[in-house]
């Protein structure tokens, strides 16, 4: 969506995806201010939505990081205790006691 100069006239074009290509469509001068306003409104809505999504994703990622820390510490402690007690992971699956341990 933009104003372009053709000769000594300013012409408003709106762009749209058609069959995977950007196609510009000329907007009649009478309609141009209204179409521009609607386009601007949509752009702001998209921007607000994007910011909202980003904020939510950041919040979720932060919380996940906090939980991951708990999981990792518990995991390290468990694995250390298992190995120290003579257990080994069998085929990356269950823990099995090694013979003679």
């Amino acid at each position, binding site marked *: 969506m933009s104003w372009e100069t053709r000769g000594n006239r300013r012409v408003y074009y709106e762009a749209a995806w058609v069959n995977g290509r950007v196609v510009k469509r000329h907007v009649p001068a009478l309609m141009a201010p209204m179409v521009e306003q609607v386009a601007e409104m949509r752009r702001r809505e998209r921007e607000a939505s994007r910011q909202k*999504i980003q904020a*939510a994703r950041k919040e979720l990622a932060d919380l996940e990081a906090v939980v991951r820390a708990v999981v990792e510490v518990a995991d*390290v*402690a*468990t*694995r*250390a205790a298992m190995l120290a007690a003579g257990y*080994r992971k069998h085929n990356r699956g269950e823990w099995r*006691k090694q013979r003679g341990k």
Partner: protein
Amino acid sequence: MASDPKPRSPRDQAVALNALIERAGNGDEGAAKQIRATLTELPGLADIGGNVADEAEKRLVASYAGKCLGTREFVTQKLKNLRAELGGATALPLEKLLIDRVVATWLHVSYLEFKYAATTSMDVTLAVYYQRAITAANKRHLAAIKALAEVRRLALPAIQVGPNVLAIDARGSHGSSLPAIGG
């Protein structure tokens, strides 16, 4: 105890221990011996884990309840009950760590599900993101339950936390007397 105590951060210690675990997992006997030695030298891993779990719990409860003190009390009480059901009061340090993990992952799943359900209108991209986060959190929760059950089933020697020292001690038949998980 080490003769030359080097000041190392808990994270460095965890990384070092993790490297040893990797080696021991590949059948390196020397690494397994080193783990036993390291466990006696490390500051209490269970303590560190407990602190991390406390922090996580605070963050999750704060996110869950927001400014509503009533909700905060309800959630805190629910976590207390959950810990009691899992035998938190009588659990050994390693089990406590695993119970903390179960509680944290449960709270995370609950928070995500609550948040997802409570949002009246949601962008499709965000909804997909929530769904993935809920699935991943559920997996983590199930893995946490499994780990706790496995440690109890094997009646693993407990990690005993002394004053700033972590050591391995033999355990009796403590595991069988504990309540069942998810009971």
